[in-house]
């Protein structure tokens, strides 16, 4: 595990994975978008607007998934003081916030034709909104503490406290009987959705995953370089006069 603690090792690993991940991402997006918008039937109830689902549902899954990644990274950073884990948390947060925003926006756009309003204060919707706020808080905390290391660890504590929200999102539809429909794919007794709609849904989910991996690796490399630069600058600042 401490093999990856070395930034150089990590960079090499990332460079090896990236081309494959980018290829997979392009293919999956092409296939996913094609099946979602051209090669799948309109819903007998919702008509063409069902196609929003292929964007919306996987985005919502990603929003929760990325939060868990961030929480695991935070836990690793706090307990084992793993320097790369801090950066991993920092690299994931904007992605998570982006997918959460995407789920919120597509949900709102979908809500207008389906429910007649952009927004209702339904349990599922509000807990996703809270998730969005948690991402924002995490990023704000990173921004506002002066010392990088400290900032990251403080944000990690917040991320762990916020994990409480994930089960609330997942089960809110079951606890409160509300407008939002319950899970039909990710459930214990197997998916209850028709195969023609399941395929594009899964393809889009895979495409989002690939996108996540690509951007995550890019951002990690960026963070590592930024960090290196900061350390070098600090070293220069503290170099004894005339030492070099």
């Amino acid at each position, binding site marked *: 595990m401490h093999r990856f603690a070395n930034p150089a090792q990590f960079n090499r690993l990332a460079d090896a994975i990236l081309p494959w991940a980018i290829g997979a991402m392009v293919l999956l997006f092409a296939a996913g978008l094609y099946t979602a918008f051209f090669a799948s039937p309109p819903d007998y109830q919702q008509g063409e607007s069902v196609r929003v689902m292929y964007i919306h549902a996987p985005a919502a899954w990603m929003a929760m998934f990325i939060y868990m990644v961030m929480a695991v990274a935070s836990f690793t950073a706090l307990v084992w003081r793993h320097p790369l884990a801090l950066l991993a948390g920092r690299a994931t947060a904007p992605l998570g916030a982006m997918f959460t925003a995407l789920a919120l926006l597509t949900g709102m756009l979908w809500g207008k034709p389906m429910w007649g309003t952009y927004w209702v204060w339904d349990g599922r919707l509000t807990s996703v909104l809270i998730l969005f706020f948690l991402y924002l808080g995490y990023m704000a905390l990173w921004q506002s503490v002066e010392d990088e290391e400290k900032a990251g660890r403080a944000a990690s504590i917040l991320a762990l406290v916020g994990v409480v929200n994930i089960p609330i999102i997942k089960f809110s539809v079951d606890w409160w009987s509300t407008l939002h429909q319950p899970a039909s794919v990710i459930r214990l007794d197997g998916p209850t959705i028709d195969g023609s709609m399941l395929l594009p849904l899964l393809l889009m989910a895979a495409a989002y995953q690939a996108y996540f991996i690509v951007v995550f690796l890019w951002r990690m490399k960026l963070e590592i370089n930024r960090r290196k630069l900061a350390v070098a600058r*600090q070293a220069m600042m503290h170099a004894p006069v005339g030492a070099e």
Partner: protein
Amino acid sequence: MFDRLDFSFQAGDFVCLTGKNGSGKSTFLRFLAGFIHPEQGELAYRRADDMFSEIVPDDFLLSGHQNGLKPGMTLRENADFFVRLMTGTPASSSILENATEIFSMAALLDEPVQYFSSGQRHRAALMRFALVDRQIWLMDEPTVGLDADNRAALASLITGHTARGGIVVAATHDPLGVPGVTLDMDAFQPAGLALEEAWL
């Protein structure tokens, strides 16, 4: 933060940390007090019973750049809370009297700290060393803003403590007039380098 820093203090030492601005004196004191954890290496502490152990915060008193006084409370209330906090018992009047005498604070004892001048505040903060009995005193720039009389009082307070077997570590730019070891922080590897190796 520091490289190649290897030293030990023992009972009765007065250690004077000197060094240029930014050489790490304040950081080092906070490190000794256990606020900052070393990236490598360790800090060990040998008790009278000859067992090595981790640092126990009970053995320290630290006075830093801030003075730790509540401006709205009088000096007496501040001192009383400090003693309760550190020992769990109220300050006995003899201890309080003794502590106020050292820096001649008696006239100010029942004044709210917010009306003190900067030097008076600093003296009030230094009173802690006479209020509570701890072995290791960590002082960051203890002479700041003190007039000549009070510097002398500080010096004799420190001498008394080391004579009783206490340890005093003081970071200062002004000679305190107390004989002791001088640790020049400029001599150690500056900050940032230990980190650098891992990242570059």
